[in-house]
């Protein structure tokens, strides 16, 4: 099975110069905990609800004047939409992570593949990714 058959393609994103308040508001409105940061459609980074809490609020940054690119993670693990799901799952396990940004061959984001998506097709696959992810802590 290909990644594109399983990934969530409904993805909300933010721009690198959006304020953290804007990003937090978007996360609340959409229910997403992670937003790809896109510049002209290209993937620059990822920002999560935890980044906003722990890397901004916790140290008293001004959320109106601090922009997304200040606290986003730039080292984003990606896979291709035409890659095999087993392959992508192996990648997640090796990196101890629970999701991958899915890109096309121009580095444009087409979706997110998470351990939740894996759980819909294989309990064994999802469970092993989850177990590997917990080893990080």
């Amino acid at each position: 099975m290909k990644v594109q058959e399983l990934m969530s393609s409904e993805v909300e994103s933010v721009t690198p110069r959006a304020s953290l308040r804007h990003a937090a508001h978007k996360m609340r409105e959409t229910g997403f905990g992670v937003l790809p940061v896109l510049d002209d459609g290209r993937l620059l980074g990822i920002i999560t609800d935890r980044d906003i809490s722990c890397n901004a609020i916790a140290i008293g940054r001004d959320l109106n004047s601090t922009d997304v690119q200040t606290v986003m993670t730039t080292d984003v693990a990606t896979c291709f939409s035409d890659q095999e799901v087993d392959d992508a799952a192996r990648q997640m396990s090796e990196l101890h992570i629970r999701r991958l940004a899915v890109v096309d061959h121009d580095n444009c984001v087409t979706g997110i593949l998470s351990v939740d998506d894996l759980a819909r097709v294989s309990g064994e696959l999802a469970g092993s990714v989850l177990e590997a992810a917990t080893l990080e802590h």
Partner: protein
Amino acid sequence: MKINELMTPGLESISPKTTAKEAARKMHDLHIGSLPVVDDGELVGIITDRDICCRVTGMGRDAVMTSVADVMGKEVVTCFDDQDVTDAVQLMVDHHIRRLAVLRRDNSMAGFLSVDDLARNSHELASNVLQATTQVH
């Protein structure tokens, strides 16, 4: 298998009167994503990094002026540490949640049991919980 053999023992908690900013700081320092909120020895809620991002910043509040009590989740699903793990899984599936607060029989807080803890014991059980819970990326 009993819940206390698999749970993550929780020694850390936070008071409902603490500010959201201090709660974020504590989660950052401890590398955790949630804290039990304890008032006078009694569990009154749970606060997560997502609550702080979405219910404080995402709603235009100031993290220094907002207390943990204002944004914590008040409906906490609990289980007892001497219950069987399969009982806990059923509770998670029924309530569509990924984490349970674990109490001792004297109602004191013993820790948390999360879907991550389940994954260390059974990939299938962990995956069942993932499938039953609402997807938040």
